[in-house]
């Protein structure tokens, strides 16, 4: 592809859809598995010398001195990095409407009045549009509580959130370090598998990075799913779910049955009841410490130096952070203060352990768990405005469970409601990405997007 045409094309797309916070053109070599691909990168990932701000105004003008490990790996395979995709500031959101002050909200490629989902909204939106325009493209997204699956579902593309620790987080702007995962968003399962093969693996720069051996994910794609034991998470089909989505998932289940998978129902009461609360407390506690460094002294936004340092910090942070960033900093700080720490932070950590145990027990019996990715199709911006912050957080009900447990999950497009895509989510045990890709591949023909 002629790179100049692409640049112009990208600028035009961006004017219309706001998928990029920054466009760039970084390539180090022209050979490798990705030599024909352009790669978009969520703004939360460091690309050397390219403005990287995690979607937040507080980091305006910040140019990292180094590439994230995943970026190094993609460049080594001949990829061209074309830009930093828009997102909720620091990943704080499900609709990409909490973008940083003075930034633009990405628009759904199917209907501009609808959200792309978030927080990797620009990544998923552009993936769908690039597919429509015939651009060979893979997006790198990042998920803390569902930020890959949610936008993939709303934009009708594939999003894979790997097992926590499978992909190095070195060079990722932290939201909640014990939950953050980098993963690919693509128009096909094969592209997901290819990208995961490249970015997975131990990194000596990230202490949490796993030393597990990495299989060739592309190889297993065509393996039949006959005999696979699948369980449908009962609680995910109760109150609050769009009936059209329920119907679509039942159809998907039929397709899987036809291919020889056995389907049963499972109940995950602890996860359903407590995952959301535990997730938000842990995520906000960690986030509030991560965002403390953004105070206008070292990185990003600066203001005129006036007053004492406390006054200066406060001024920079008041102007730089948006409402949701401030909300999470305050809640997170509160929840880890002595007196509340045991009741919130420590308790949430204990709940997390129970939830992991519940999933682990399920995986003794089943290969895969199924749920909708989101309880609704992409809402309009008007609908989102009417949500309270609590309702806003409730939308993440399906994705926070696996996120909290560090389990790999994949969102696959499986149909439409009123021309807006529906996503089905598959969850596997730790490091069982092969099974996820295998099952996603087996239903790929259902995707008529």
């Amino acid at each position: 592809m002629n790179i100049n045409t692409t640049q112009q094309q990208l600028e035009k797309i961006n004017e219309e859809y706001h998928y990029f916070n920054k466009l760039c053109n970084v390539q180090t070599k022209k050979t490798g598995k990705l030599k024909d691909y352009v790669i978009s990168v969520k703004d939360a990932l460091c690309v050397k010398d390219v403005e990287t701000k995690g979607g937040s105004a507080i980091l305006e003008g910040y140019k990292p001195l180094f590439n994230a490990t995943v970026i190094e790996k993609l460049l080594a395979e001949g990829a061209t990095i074309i830009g930093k995709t828009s997102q909720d500031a620091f990943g704080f959101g499900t609709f990409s409407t909490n973008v940083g002050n003075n930034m633009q909200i990405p628009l759904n490629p199917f209907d501009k009045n609808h959200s792309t989902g978030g927080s990797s909204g620009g990544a998923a939106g552009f993936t769908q549009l690039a597919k429509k325009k015939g651009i060979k493209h893979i997006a790198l997204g990042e998920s803390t509580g569902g930020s890959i699956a949610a936008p993939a579902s709303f934009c009708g593309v594939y999003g894979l959130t790997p097992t926590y620790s499978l992909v190095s987080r070195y060079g990722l702007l932290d939201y909640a370090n014990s939950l953050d995962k980098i993963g690919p968003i693509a128009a096909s399962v094969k592209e997901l598998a290819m990208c995961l093969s490249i970015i997975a693996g131990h990194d000596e720069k990230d202490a949490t990075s796993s030393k597990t051996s990495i299989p060739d994910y592309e190889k297993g794609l065509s393996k039949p799913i006959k005999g696979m034991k699948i369980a449908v998470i009962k609680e995910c089909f109760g109150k609050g779910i769009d009936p059209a989505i329920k119907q679509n998932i039942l159809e998907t289940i039929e397709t899987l049955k036809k291919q020889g998978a056995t389907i049963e129902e499972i109940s995950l009461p602890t996860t359903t009841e407590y995952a959301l609360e535990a997730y938000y407390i842990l995520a906000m506690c960690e986030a509030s410490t991560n965002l403390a460094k953004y105070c206008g002294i070292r990185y990003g936004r600066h203001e005129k130096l006036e007053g004492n340092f406390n006054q200066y910090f406060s001024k920079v942070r008041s102007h730089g952070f948006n409402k949701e960033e401030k909300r999470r900093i305050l809640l997170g700080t509160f929840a880890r203060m002595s007196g509340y720490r045991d009741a919130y932070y420590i308790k949430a950590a204990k709940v997390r352990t129970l939830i992991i145990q519940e999933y682990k027990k399920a995986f003794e019996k089943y290969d895969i768990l199924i749920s909708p990715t989101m309880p609704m199709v992409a809402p309009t911006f008007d609908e989102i405005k009417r949500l309270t912050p609590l309702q806003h957080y409730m939308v993440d009900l399906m994705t926070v469970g696996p996120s909290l447990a560090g389990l790999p999950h994949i969102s696959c497009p499986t149909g439409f409601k009123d021309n807006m895509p529906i996503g089905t989510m598959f969850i596997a045990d730790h490091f069982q990405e092969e099974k996820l890709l295998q099952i996603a591949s087996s239903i790929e023909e259902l995707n008529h997007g």
Partner: protein
Amino acid sequence: MVNGKFNSDVVIGLEIHFQPNLKSKLFCSCATKAETKKNENSKDEPNTRTCVICLGMPGSKPMLNKKALDYGLKLGLALNCSIALELIFSRKSYFYPDLAKNYQISQFELPLGKNGEIVLSSGKKIGIERIHLEEDPASLVHPNTIHDSAYTLIDYNRSGICLIELVTKPEMRSPEEAREFLKKLRTILQYLEIFDEQTGVIKADANISIKESGYVRSEVKNITGFKEIERALLYEVERQKQAMQNNEKLVMDTRGWNALTGKTTRLRTKETEADYGYIIDPDLVPIDITQEMIEKTKRGLPELPDEKIKRFITKHKLSPIDAQVLAMERVLAELFEKVAEEIDPILAAQWLRHELVKVANYHKLALDQLRIEELEIVELLSMVEKKEISDRTAQQILSLLTEKGFSPRQYVKEHKLTIVSDTKELEELCKKAIAESQPAIDDYKAGKEIALNNVVGKVMKYTKGTADAAKVKDMLKKMLR
């Protein structure tokens, strides 16, 4: 403590930080010291020993320096602490310009070591509450004083350097006890070889209260160096006592120590404890501390001062005080052990603890800065032991030996310093001295005993100090009878 109340006149607790002698920082590979090139003074340019990790750049992640864990384990075991099963780090949040991330990676929940002790010579145990590892913040640099500078500069060279923090229980009852505690700690650090006294910094925050005030405590922050800590404690106890005598009311406060004026001054009154909102650092996975690691570290520990003192007393029959003085200085203790294999341990102990220390003081050097070759010392002291040379000769040679190397035996031979033990020769010299000292002899005969020293001195002069003065005196007395 009785019923949770202290019942002594003075209560002191210390929080001690020291920088272990590691080559790289706690979570990155940046150097802890400026590189010294040959023929060049080490010049530490600000912000040159930094990287994305110790600057807390967005996206960077800390990686543990495993050697820091080894050092922490060594100290924990040497102080009889119980060791945690896991090494866990926490984020301690506070906003300050010298803190790159606005949180400091420290330990909170599960300190590496806890419930240890140091035993004072009286047998009293001072409890160690906890020992943990943490990173140092950067340093703030003011062009003038902190009050009249128009701006503040930040040097991140120190940011991320490993510190070991040791917190005592409030069990010291006087500045003197605190001094002994610190001296013992210093010796243990010497033995473990985890602290470089020449370049490393030791700092303390001290909590001090007195009975008269009902134990309202002041915290004196950031006192640097062993000697200063004791000075600050002495001052602060006195200040509090004076205040009570003057009917002033003491309030909880945080104070600074000014080494120049020798006074503490109030920085702020303390109404509440700071709330650091600790969470486990999710970037650093917990590291299992296995029984195997603990055993291995234990086996690698050197014999520590207390055991050494006991062994010196039982094996070498030293007096408790000799044993203690030697054991409290690693250099002396090690030298003693080697020398004691060849010559009488009691003689060796006397010479090392008195004469060698005197030489060091004379040269204004620390013991480990002296040039000491054990073989030379053995050669020298064996001549003393066999009474081949006089004490005075030996003292002179010892002083020279610490400056440059040579064979003491050869030296004695060349300079003819062997004790004159030939009685005939001595008698001749005594006669000569008597002949030349008529006035003194008259005085002596008139009953002035002391006048004889003059004559002895003459003989010593003839023999260049190599004669046995007592023997000469006896000889003179006999001859004058």
